[in-house]
């Protein structure tokens, strides 16, 4: 069950919220656990109910184990236990990702384990007190807004919030607004841009024209952004409606002036995790140029693997890593001086980097890359024009959403009833789209 499914929006969420608001605040963590487990069961058991039960059991087991381990790790001098725990958890994660193409990876497990291990490490480091209350701990790690695809929340902040649940009409209203805006981005724009990208595959990368290839690539870039940012916004909104502040995952990444900056603005919680728990412990940039470059390579190799086992993700990560290294060593100085060139470079580099991210097969990947630069033959050289006519306004709207403008407009609108009317209309437009088109799951659920 995804946030952008009719089942979730029109059935699960209204019923859950009604129950959640009716009962006293003190019960909320238990309601949250119950609702989240139910949500997980529906999500994981889509193909078979027994699978949902098994994965739910696994989730509960890991939660119970890490809660217990957290309490043990609070005592000093137990580094070996932390190492052992993390070793087992990440080995299991890696095994599940590799084994049978990830068929045995429970949904959302990558996100979940990253959150849990951050908690354990922070407790071991003494930055966080181990949670004594099993209920609070469980509610914090399994809460459904972030269970399947993040954001990977800072455990300390959630722990703090668990004891002080907020509830105000204003927060609920604001959360609802974020939920609807996220949904709209994903469903009204993202999904349909995704179908433009999918058409390139339908026709075959070796048959499309160069214009089609560029349109498709732009559509993929925008779709990924709107899809995942929309999802993250939904998660934030849902969290807020339940009384929790989840961290923001995107800060207008396409505004970035360099690839390094892009990844400080894109999927922020994941990149922060790698920074906090891998890059800095490795020594970060404090141990000389060579070590810094090595650390960057390690972090990016891990990021590539996190996204998927396919070799294409390694190509993607290696390409980005080389660009970032280059920026650190030479290019950065030039980029800082320019105002226009840095944007052209960044957007161009990011667009190209999405090619290996999007296409798993090496032959198809090179065929598509060739098409971008005019190699190969097009079956119908004029196939880009009808697409541009049909998808032009979607591409335009997507590009506009990559700028800070919509955010500023929304901040004005949301203070008046105009914003509310807009939200109401958007909600039903989204439901209309969901009801009348086939479902298209989030790209990021696979990870």
């Amino acid at each position: 069950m995804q946030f952008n499914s009719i089942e979730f929006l029109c059935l699960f969420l209204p019923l859950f919220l009604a129950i959640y608001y009716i009962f006293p605040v003190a019960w909320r963590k238990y309601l949250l656990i119950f609702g989240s487990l139910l949500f997980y069961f529906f999500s994981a058991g889509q193909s078979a109910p027994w699978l949902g039960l098994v994965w739910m059991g696994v989730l509960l087991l890991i939660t119970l184990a890490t809660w217990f381990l957290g309490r043990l790790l609070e005592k000093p001098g137990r580094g070996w236990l932390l190492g052992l725990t993390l070793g087992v958890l990440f080995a299991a994660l890696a095994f599940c990702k590799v084994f049978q193409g990830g068929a045995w990876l429970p949904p959302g497990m990558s996100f979940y384990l990253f959150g849990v291990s951050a908690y354990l490490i922070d407790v071991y480091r003494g930055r966080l007190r181990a949670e004594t209350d099993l209920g609070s701990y469980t509610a914090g790690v399994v809460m459904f807004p972030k269970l399947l695809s993040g954001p990977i929340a800072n455990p300390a902040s959630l722990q703090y919030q668990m004891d002080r649940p907020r509830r105000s009409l204003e927060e609920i209203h604001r959360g609802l607004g974020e939920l609807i805006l996220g949904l709209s981005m994903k469903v009204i724009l993202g999904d349909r841009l995704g179908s433009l990208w999918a058409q390139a595959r339908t026709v075959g990368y070796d048959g499309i024209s160069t214009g089609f290839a560029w349109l498709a690539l732009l559509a993929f870039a925008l779709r990924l952004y709107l899809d995942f940012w929309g999802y993250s916004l939904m998660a934030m909104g849902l969290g807020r409606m339940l009384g929790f502040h989840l961290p923001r995952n995107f800060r207008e990444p396409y505004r970035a002036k360099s690839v390094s900056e892009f990844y400080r603005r894109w999927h922020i919680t994941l990149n922060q995790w790698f920074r906090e728990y891998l890059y800095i412990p490795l020594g970060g940039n404090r141990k000389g140029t060579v070590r810094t470059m090595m650390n960057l390579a390690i972090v990016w190799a891990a990021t590539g693997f996190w996204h998927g086992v396919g070799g294409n993700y390694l190509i993607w990560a290696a390409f980005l890593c080389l660009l970032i290294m280059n920026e650190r060593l030479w290019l950065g100085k030039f980029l800082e001086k320019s105002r226009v060139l840095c944007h052209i470079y960044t957007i161009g580099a990011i667009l190209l980097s999405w090619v290996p991210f999007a296409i798993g097969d090496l032959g198809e990947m090179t065929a598509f890359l060739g098409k971008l630069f005019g190699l190969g033959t097009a079956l119908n050289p004029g196939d880009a024009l009808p697409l541009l006519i049909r998808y032009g306004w979607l591409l335009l709207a997507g590009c506009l959403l990559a700028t800070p403008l919509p955010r500023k407009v929304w901040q004005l609108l949301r203070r008046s009833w105009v914003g509310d009317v807009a939200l109401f209309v958007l909600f039903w437009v989204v439901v209309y789209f969901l009801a009348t088109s086939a479902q298209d799951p989030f790209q990021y659920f696979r990870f």
Partner: protein
Amino acid sequence: MKKRYLALLCAIVITLILVTGIGIYLKFIVLLPLGLGQEDLAVALPFRMLADEGLRYSVRLAMNATDPPAAAESTAAPTTEETTEATTEAATETTAAPTTEPTTEPATEPTTERTTEPTTAPTTEPTTAPTTEPATEATTAPTTPPSSAPTQPPVTGETWRFIEPQIDFAANGKGDAWFDDVLFIGDSRVVGFRDYARTGGAEYFCNVGMSVFQVMAGIQCSDLGFEAQSLETLLSHRRYGKIIISLGINECGYPLSSFRSAYAELLQTVKTLQPGATIILQGILGVTRGYAGDRSYFYPDNLSRFNEVIKSMTGNGVYYIDPNTLFSDPDGYLYTSISGDGCHPTGKYYRMWADWISYAIAQLGI
């Protein structure tokens, strides 16, 4: 301020309850008795009814079919069998575990034992429930073995490899000029012809997601030579020598009986408006194994039921050709290697398909 917050919440909740109410009415009072809408959530149905003129048309069609005289007829005719099939199909789909490989079952040729004892199969082997549609084979013959395409050796038990046919279809076909007075009517597969394999001066009345229901409901399409208009308008104003109809993949989740009547109506309309035209009906091309997944309405045995219906309408200047002989493996699934999305051949294979149509028609001696 607080009033405004409450207003939005209340507005959404109240409209949600209203829409759900309408949806429940539509689902349980209107659609389910007609064998439609089993897989839809009630809330979604008002929107689907609004948006899909094809659905509305098929509802009207099914309602007419349940009129007393037709109903009396159908008790003995195979229509009842089909409607019950449709419901049991949906039931098995929701209850059974679809993780069982749908890939192994269709490989075995439907045997006579299974067709004679349709009810026992699902109970004895509950794990294979989603794939067993025992009653379906009772009426239809298995897909004809490929005649023009060479037989391919299986790579593994479940994957077949596409080998390009040795016949030069274009050289042995009717030639491009034959297509000058052709009209194609069809779904996204015909959109592929239009965009990547325009032949001669042929015209294309097609749309992604097109169904016979939509055509009959008057959906409008345009092509290079004509503005957006309904098929009826188009056929009333132009003369075509040959009309090739290629529909059915979007209908395969509907009850077979509504498909049959809508298709017959379409054919009747075409015959009436273009009395001199040769009509060629194209069978429904399968999808890949992976694309079909656990959606049993995409399985070859279901599609061949639909193809049998199409085939049954031939005669008197109406012909049938089956593209599965070209692009489907011996199990009836589209070859994976020639498709990017699992449902359509990639662009370059449309050229081959168009040439094959030309060749297949030449073989028919038209």
